[in-house]
Every structure is written in C-alpha cells, then in structure tokens.
C-alpha cells in the first residue's frame, strides 16, 4: 500500500467520510475513549509539562545530530553481527529486502505493524516475487483479509470498522462461524495466526525507537505479535524511518513513557521489547540473521527547513485523537496513511503539494493537536506555514481564490473603493437572501452556504452607524 490511499479528489474523499455514519460514530467513541485515557495518564503524573519539555529536548537534539547517531547505530549493529542497509528511497529499501528474502529462498513472511513499510509499499513488492506476507497485528490482519482496506489511524488501523463488519469479513474469507464479540473474533485470529508465526521463514518489524549507543531497537506493542515475529523466524528484517532514534537508554525511557501515555493512556504497554543484534551463542530462540533497513524516502527533504520539528514525531496519534476535523471526516479522507494533524503536516512533505495541498487547510487551527503533542511539535503553526508556502511560494491556490484576493487587495487599498463596495454589498446580495440570510450563495459562496447559512450584510455599515451614534451623543 503506498502512502496515498483512496480516491484522488480530496472533496470526494471528504464527502464519502462525512456520509459514512457508522465510521463517524466509531471515530467519535474511539476519540473520546483515547482522549480521556491520555488526559488521565498525563494528569496522574502531575508534572506532564516537564515530561513534554524533556521529550522535546531529546527529540530536537537527536534530529539536530541525526547523522552522528545513525552512524553510531549502524556501527553498533554491525559490531553485533547485524547487517545495515541505508535506503534513500522506498524502491531501494524494497530491492534490498527482496534480495535478502530471495537469498533465503523464503516464501512465508510474518510481519508486525509498521507504518514505514506501508509508506514504501513493501508488501506489494514482496508479493510480486511470490511471497506471502502475513500482517499479524489484529487491526492490520483484519484490513489485509478485507481486500487490503487501507488503515485510517496510525495506532488503531481498523478504527473505521465495526465488529459486525469484521465478523462478516472473517465469515466470508476465513469461514468463521462465531459471533461478533471482540473476544471471539480475537481468539479466532489468535488460532489462525499461531500457525503462521510457527511456519514463517522471515519476520519483518517496524521500529518505534532505535538506541544509537547500544545498537538496539524497541518495539512498543500490546498483542504479543511483534514478540512472535522476533522470536520464531530464523531471519529478521527491521525497517525504520531514519528519524526513529534516540541516543541512549535513558532517553529511551522518556520517549517510551511519553508514547504509551499519549497514545493509549497506559503507563507502559503490555510489551516493550528491546532487541540488540541477532541471537547470541547459547540461545535457542531469536533470529540467526538480522537486517536493519534505515529509510529516508523524503525525510531528509524536511531537515534544515521550517518543518524540521515534524521529524520529532513519535507516532502516538494523540493529535489525531483530539482533532475535530478528523472526528468528522475520518482517516481515509486525508488520502494518506498518515491522517490527522500530523498527517496534514507530514504528507505534503514526504510527497508534495500537488498531491496533498488541501490537507493543511483541513484544520480549524484550534491548536488542540499542539496542546497534546507529547514532544511539543507546533502542529497548527506548521499547518499555517504550509498554507503560506502553498499560496506565496508555490502559487498553488485556485484561480478563483487568487482573483478574489487580488480584488480584495485593490478594494482595501482605496478608501473610495472600500466605501462603495461595502455600501453595495447589501444590495448585491439581496437576490440571494431570504429573511436576511443567504442559504444558496452564488459562486464561491456556495461552499459556505452548502453547510450553513450566511447572514446578509446589514443595510447600514458599521462605520456609518458609529458616526451617527457619536453625533447623537451616544456613550462610547
């Protein structure tokens, strides 16, 4: 699955989201649960702001010295007997992973959840060479079984589906015979996937955080599938976005604690698994061969720009869980595997404005995202910076908007024109108004009036009213 998902046209995606009542209900209740759990977990610490400050300091320092820490990480991994491949593009990463798999003559690949492998369409690349890639995270498994339905949330990928829909998918595809109770559905997946874990030739994981000083990397999970994937197959491949790294273990403590609290309100998730190199002598389980693939795929374009802080993201989805826009349109409307506020910031950077120029506008700029971000990324400010770039540098606003803005500029530059225009406004809008409200606006006004009424401009201008009031001796 590439980064881009669904319909090409942004408005069509949004309309689809808005008219999907079930999805909207599911998103609402999920957002509420996750928001409350996050808030309780932050509250409980008592000094959450200090934790955020520390998180921010660690992430800024690491990204400012990313070259150094990646160098150190790769040295350590190689020292431990692992292989490190630096991939500038998704294609390079996929080529390398394919080579490793072909050399092993492997057919069955068990995979734990990883956004970066989605971003580079790794599954499709491996399926092309005849491999079977099995998603083992419960949410990802559900989506894979359902004809590769795209994820709509970075932590809970199947958030947009209800349990009845999941039951039907299992029934149709896997001959499932039980009810829609989540316990029964999960138990069924447990039994199905057990066989796959035991039979897999290669395990592929993502990476929550690499630790440069020891050549380790940590997986933050709840289900236990990532542990299976790293304990049972003989070969393990870990794919990491190049920014997912911290200097040492003391920093790992902080980012993990921030992640689990901000993402799901847990003090720690069920499993934090820190892996260091392939298995050592005198160990029975664990991989004999370990490959680490470090992926750029557009990330370095962000370095040294006003958007560098976007690379501080630890993928907790707290911003998604509080976003009022996400709440209404759902994850698929963003057209990117990275939805919500962080998706609106990152997607145009990793891809380009041609594909994602609407996303920075899919925000009310309320700033709730910035407030909850555990590493203090100024998300809504970054959205404004995107808007500025789109309009001023890239000239990518629509023709109608450019004409309107040019017109507005001329009108407000001249006192006479301004006076005439504001005097004319009530008369010009009268044909469209009913009871002083415009319900079906012409041209560009329609986008507004499709959703809500626009009050008709009053007959008397504020400036005139004010002058009159002064003359009549009204108090200010």
């Amino acid at each position, binding site marked *: 699955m590439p980064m881009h998902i669904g319909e090409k046209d942004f408005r069509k995606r949004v309309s689809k989201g808005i008219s999907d009542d079930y999805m909207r209900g599911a998103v609402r209740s999920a957002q509420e649960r996750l928001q409350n759990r996050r808030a309780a977990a932050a509250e409980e610490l008592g000094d959450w702001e*200090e*934790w955020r400050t520390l998180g921010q300091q660690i992430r800024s320092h690491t990204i400012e010295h990313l070259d150094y820490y990646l160098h150190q990480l790769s040295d350590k991994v190689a020292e431990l007997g692992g292989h490190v491949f630096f991939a500038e593009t998704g294609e390079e990463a996929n080529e390398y992973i394919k080579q490793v798999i072909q050399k092993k003559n492997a057919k069955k690949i068990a995979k734990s959840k990883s956004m970066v492998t989605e971003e580079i369409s790794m599954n499709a690349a491996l399926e092309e060479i005849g491999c079977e890639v099995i998603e083992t995270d419960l949410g990802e498994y559900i989506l894979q079984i359902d004809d590769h339905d795209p994820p709509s949330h970075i932590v809970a990928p199947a958030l947009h589906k209800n349990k009845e829909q999941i039951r039907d998918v299992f029934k149709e595809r896997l001959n499932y015979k039980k009810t829609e109770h989540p316990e029964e559905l999960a138990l069924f997946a447990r039994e199905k996937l057990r066989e796959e874990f035991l039979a897999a030739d290669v395990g592929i994981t993502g990476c929550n955080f690499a630790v440069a000083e020891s050549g380790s990397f940590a997986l933050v999970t709840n289900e236990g599938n990532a542990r299976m994937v790293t304990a049972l197959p003989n070969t393990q491949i870990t794919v990491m976005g190049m920014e997912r790294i911290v200097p040492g273990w003391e920093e790992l403590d902080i980012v993990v604690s921030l992640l689990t609290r901000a993402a799901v309100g847990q003090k720690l998730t*069920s499993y934090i698994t820190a892996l260091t190199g392939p298995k050592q002598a005198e160990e029975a389980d664990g991989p004999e061969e370990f490959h680490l693939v470090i992926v750029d795929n557009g990330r370095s374009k962000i370095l040294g720009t006003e958007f560098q802080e976007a690379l501080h993201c630890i993928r907790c989805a707290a911003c998604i869980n509080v976003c009022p826009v996400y709440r209404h349109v759902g994850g698929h409307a963003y057209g990117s595997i990275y939805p919500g506020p962080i998706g609106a910031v990152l997607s145009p950077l990793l891809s380009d404005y041609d594909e994602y120029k609407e996303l920075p506008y899919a925000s009310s700029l309320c700033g709730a995202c910035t407030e909850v971000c555990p590493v203090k990324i100024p998300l809504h400010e970054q959205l404004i910076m995107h808007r500025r770039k789109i309009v001023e540098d890239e000239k990518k606003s629509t023709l109608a908007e450019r004409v309107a803005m040019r017109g507005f500029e001329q009108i407000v530059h001249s006192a006479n024109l301004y006076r005439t225009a504001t005097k004319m406004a009530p008369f010009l809008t009268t044909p469209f108004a009913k009871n002083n409200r415009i319900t079906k606006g012409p041209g560009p006004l329609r986008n507004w009036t499709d959703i809500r009424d626009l009050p008709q401009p009053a007959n008397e201008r504020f400036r005139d009213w004010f002058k009159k009031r002064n003359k009549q001796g009204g108090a200010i």
Partner: protein
Amino acid sequence: MKGSIMNRDRFLTNIRTKIGGLTASQPVEKPVWTVSPQKKVLKDYTPDQLVEVLEEQCQHIHTDFFRTSSNSLEKTLDEVLNHYGAKSVIYSNDERFVSYQLNPYFESSLSTGREIYRWNEKDKETSISFAEKADVGLTFSDMTLAESGTIVLFNKKGQGRSVSLLPRDYIAIVPKSTIVPRMTQATSYVQEMVDNGEDIASCINFITGPSNSADIEMKLVVGVHGPIRAAYIIVDDK
C-alpha cells in the same frame, strides 16, 4: 562475526548537508537535559510501599497478584498452578529455581500427572514446541517496575524468549528485592552496562500483564497472541 553496512556514506552526507551538521567522526556531546521528572516518580518509597504500588497496579493490568514468603513459595505456586488448571508447565533455565528450592516440587509434580519442562537452549525445536502447547510459562523476574506493574526479563542463554510468550498463561515469580520504582531504574542499569562496554541481552522484555488488544471498536480484549492470563507471585528474598 561482524555484519555489513551498505550505502552509509552517501546517505549520511546528504543528511549532514541538509542540517549543516557536524561530521559523524566527531563525537556529539549529549547535553544535560534541563529537567528530569522521571527521577521523582515514587522516589524514597520503601520496598514495602513499592509492593503496595505494584499490587494496586496489577488491578489495572488484569494481573493476579499473590504474596508469599520464600518458605511458602512452593505451596503458593502449587495453588496458582491449580487455580489456572495447569496440566503442562514450561520454566526458564534459571538457577533461581534451584536456589528457591523449587526443583523437588517440579519433580514431585511429575508424579501428579502435570508435565513440567525446563527450557533447553540446546534444543530449540523441543523447547518451542513444548512452550507452544504449554498451559503455563514460568519465569523469575529480573527487575520489576512498581509504577507500571512490569516484569523485566533479560532474555539470554537459558532465559528463552518464548517461555513468557507462547504458553496460554504466564506466571512471574518476583523476588521482592527486584522491585524498583519505574522504567528509569531499569534503563539506567542497562545504560551502565552499555557505558562499561558490557554485552546487554539480545532481547530485553518489559512485560506488563497479559497480551491484549483494542483493535476491534477500541474495546479491550485480554489475551491475543501472547498469554491470555498473567499472575505475579511476590516472594520475600531468600
């Protein structure tokens, strides 16, 4: 055997140009962070207070909590295994099972029809296939985090990764002295080993209760791929 590094120079040069950074050959000084909230958590708690925090946290992580003395450990373990209906048990190859004198118990269990197997790092196939079918996986905790209710396992040699993962239920024996306030103490311990150039375990697991998922309608299901139930037995030290 040393592994390989591919494409590094081009990749890192590009990054360096973009951030206008240092050269990777010069060591970067890690700054002193201006705040350290992690060090204040449960600071100055006595071992008994930490046990209380742990007990309370177990309720939030769907984990059964038991407390016993080293003399009664055998009895408590037997009760918990019966409670879980354990017909087969796999335990890690850890000398603490000897020092806490559990071996005679394991031997006598065999006569009661309970299958007991010690993880054998020299026999991957048998060990994994036993673990996969076992009702209970049993380990000692290497470090225990009171705040989150977490068992830390340094999985190496006889401490197979699968013992705490593949069986239906997981039981951890927690010597009271292994309990520390939070993750900070565990990561500092590892950092010290790293600083001293010592090998750290190839797999360090932080285990907090049974496996779970909220992927279906955000409703919590306890027991997904890893163990379905978990119990901690806190034992006063030998």
